[in-house]
């Protein structure tokens, strides 16, 4: 079902059915978007809050942006609010935020992955280091990188989600990628 059809159904006599379809359609993408920002252990609450806010705001959604951009925006704002609240309480989660329990990175210094006489990292180790590297990015830069790298979101859509100019987003992504590269080669 397209977004337009969903909205039409929502404004008709079946808003709950429409919203359930909306959740079914976007819950996985939003789940990963939020998890990459706040970490696995905090995703449940933020995702729940996102959908509750979406329900309350959908009535007034003016269709001037794509529905998924609007949802992403809510999810991003909820995630950032969560992080800010956690920082105030000094309970920042350093969960890497990606992968199943088996693939979760335990907190470890980067030097563990690259020593003076270390063998080149294999694929899995490199991926793990990549996850660590992403996690070291500042919050907003991390969001930009994730949206581009994982969600493959065009800059124009990203601009609506983050309310930032395309140029600034391109610069942010460029810097993020460079930082990650530096981290991977052990020069951070």
């Amino acid at each position, binding site marked *: 079902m397209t977004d337009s059809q969903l909205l039409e159904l929502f404004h008709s006599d079946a808003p709950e059915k429409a919203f359930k379809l909306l959740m079914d359609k976007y*819950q996985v993408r939003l789940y990963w978007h939020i998890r990459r920002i706040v970490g696995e252990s905090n995703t449940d609450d933020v995702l*729940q809050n996102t*959908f*509750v806010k979406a329900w309350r705001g959908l009535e007034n959604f003016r269709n001037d942006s794509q529905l998924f951009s609007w949802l992403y925006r809510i999810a991003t704002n909820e995630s950032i609010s969560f992080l800010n609240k956690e920082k105030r309480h000094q309970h920042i989660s350093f969960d890497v935020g990606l992968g199943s329990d088996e693939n979760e990175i335990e907190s470890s210094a980067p030097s563990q992955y690259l020593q003076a006489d270390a063998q080149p990292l294999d694929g899995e180790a490199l991926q793990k280091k990549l996850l660590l590297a992403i996690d070291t990015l500042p919050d907003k830069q991390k969001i930009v990188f994730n949206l581009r*790298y994982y969600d493959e979101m065009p800059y124009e859509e990203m601009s609506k989600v983050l309310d930032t100019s395309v140029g600034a987003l391109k610069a942010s992504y460029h810097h993020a*990628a460079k930082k990650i590269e530096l981290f991977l080669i052990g020069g951070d």
Partner: protein
Amino acid sequence: MKNLENINEELKGISPLLSSIEKPTVETPNALYFEQMQQRVWGEINQPTSAIQKENWLDNLLQKVEGLFIPQYALSYAVVLSFLVLSISYFMVQKPTNEATLSSLTDTEIQTYLAENIDEFEEQTLMQENAQTPSLEKSVSAEQINNYLENDFTTELL
């Protein structure tokens, strides 16, 4: 597809190393997770509005109160509060004690004071304040009055 190609080309241009790494593949939570999540969402949506508003109001208040106990802010508040308390205490202590008013003085105290400080009073002032003092004849000189006051001064005049 074109978007994806552009993204790959873009990353290759920024960081060939990063573009060569296969994106980590991860497992998405199973359907049960999302089913339960949706139930929680509906549960919150169907909560009575007043309960939600009350909760939000309380949540906001708790958030503000919690802010007072953040160490860096708590110390500042404590310093400011201490300063205020000390300032108030200081000014309370410095406030002059009740001055004695003339009405609270006894006649004996007044007479004793005048007797000890008679030189400081001008004769005309004493005469004007004492209604029982007979009026002086114009022929009486100031020197006579002074002598009278210094030598013949009695408490009856008061």
